[in-house]
């Protein structure tokens, strides 16, 4: 029998310290939450810190209706889903050529994608803006679907080819000996085995696209085409006079992200750490 090790005082101090820190970190969300349900007269009387006595749900609905939030949600969903599909497909195919096919010049292709990852969107935005006008894609959701679908391919290819390059050789060799074509190998070996990773990648693209700001800001001027993130950033300025309405606006703005995160928490964490391991 090994005696149970004494814990001592230090771990408890660490625990208390970290819990206080976590509460400080969550505090902005809490304060936005209680104020978005606080009636305006309570806010004036009791201030921003007080817990609401009566719960007022009207600001929520008012803001929702005024910015036509359902429309924005639908736009964002549409854009993010299509971008994930396009980007995962393109990245998967390119990474297949690099990681499994080991085509010549693969390091050049990867290096090019890596460098492109550092290019700021500002160095692309004006050309994208003027070309999209030429193709009549300006102020259309398709403009940003195409742009993000293709732009995300850089990161996706980089990530997937490093995953694919660790693929067991014996499996591929056996398939080749049996005379399987590249397409056949892709469909019956690589795709089924990589499905979980592709799902992780799709989730990441979905959230990245959801949070994009600069390119939607430039490309989608009309109200009906705006995404959630974009409309939050440009409409809340109108609510400066009413602090509780502003809290409600911020809450509505980050609610979808929090919900996605809670649903996909595990998947997302896997993705983030996958990206960090070379």
């Amino acid at each position, binding site marked *: 029998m090994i005696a149970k090790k004494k814990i001592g005082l230090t771990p408890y101090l660490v625990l208390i310290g970290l819990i206080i820190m976590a509460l400080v970190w969550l505090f902005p969300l809490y304060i936005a939450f209680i104020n978005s349900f606080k009636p305006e007269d309570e806010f004036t009387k009791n201030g921003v810190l007080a817990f609401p006595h009566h719960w007022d749900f009207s600001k929520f609905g008012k803001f929702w209706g005024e910015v036509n939030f359902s429309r924005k949600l639908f736009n964002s969903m549409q854009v993010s889903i299509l971008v994930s599909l396009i980007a995962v497909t393109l990245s998967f195919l390119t990474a297949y050529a690099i990681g499994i096919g080991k085509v010549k010049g693969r390091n050049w292709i990867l290096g090019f994608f890596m460098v492109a990852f550092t290019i700021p969107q*500002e160095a692309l935005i*004006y050309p994208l803006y003027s070309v999209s006008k030429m193709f009549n894609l300006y102020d259309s959701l398709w403009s940003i679907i195409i742009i993000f679908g293709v732009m995300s391919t850089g990161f996706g290819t980089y990530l997937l080819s490093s995953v694919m390059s660790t693929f067991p050789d014996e499996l591929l060799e056996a398939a080749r000996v049996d005379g399987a074509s590249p397409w056949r190998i892709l469909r019956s070996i690589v795709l089924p085995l990589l499905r979980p990773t592709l799902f992780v990648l799709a989730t990441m693209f979905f959230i990245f696209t959801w949070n994009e700001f600069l390119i939607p800001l430039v490309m989608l001027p009309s109200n009906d085409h705006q995404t959630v993130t974009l409309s939050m950033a440009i409409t809340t300025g109108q609510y400066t006079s009413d602090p509780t309405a502003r809290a409600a606006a911020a809450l509505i703005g980050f609610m979808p992200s929090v919900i996605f995160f809670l649903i996909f928490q595990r998947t997302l964490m896997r993705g983030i750490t996958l990206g960090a391991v070379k």
Partner: protein
Amino acid sequence: MTSKLNETKQFYWYAIPGVTAFLALVGGSFFYNIYLSFNDWQGIGTPTWIGLTNYKELVHDHTFWLSFLHAVEFIFAMSIIPTALGLLIASLIYDFIAKHFGNAVSTFLRISLYVPQIIALPVVGILWAWMLSPNVGVINTILKNIGLDRFALNWLGQGGTAMFSLSVMMIWIQIGYTIVIFISGMSRLDPYLDEAAQLDGATWFQRFRIITIPQLYPEISVVGLTTTVAALKVFGPVYVMTNGGPGDATQVPAFFSYFHFFSTLRVGYGAAIATVLALILTVLAISLLRLQRKVELSR
């Protein structure tokens, strides 16, 4: 042998859609932007070639240099401080919390600290602008409640505190990312070294400094690179919170180029700023990757 060669060639087809689309969209735009930076253009009509004039003007543009100074300040707030704090906190969670209090507590801590990461930056900006507002904002309310009335400032409205306020927000945002990466890195380390050192009577901080940190170099360099790149690209929070102001107090390169593209309509000048930024980012990324390889080889 020949069949294998043919096979390798067949694989090229799979790379064509992705590479072509990426080259056309990203490569094409990038070079078109460089071309624009040598021109004088209002966005309509034909651009006029003016050679290096835009760049010569940039060198003397006080705001341009100031914007890069602010970018360097953001490297502190978004990369250096979060990396250092993230290492410390990740290690505390890993060594003390997970070990003595179980996974549930450590997951709660990780998720709470990670939450700011999942919210879109402009939305975070709105939330903080609201918290920082001078009269009814929660931060000043707290300061007044604890008797620190003199520190209840107009945080975003004054040149002296605007950058500081944005930096504090950035630390709040970034720390979750570094913690998550470092904790996952720690789980790949061999506990043997740490246990041996513990038996030899090394304190926690000694083990943290001498054993944990050196083994986490790969993660540290990835985090350092991605957060530095992000710091130089800051746009959304500045757009929604300060518009680069007051004056130029929070001007950053990305916002400065956007401003010239779409407000002053000096497209060529905006393009020159964006080109310089892109160049700096690329050089920085390549040298950080080089450095990382050097460190890896030397060990």
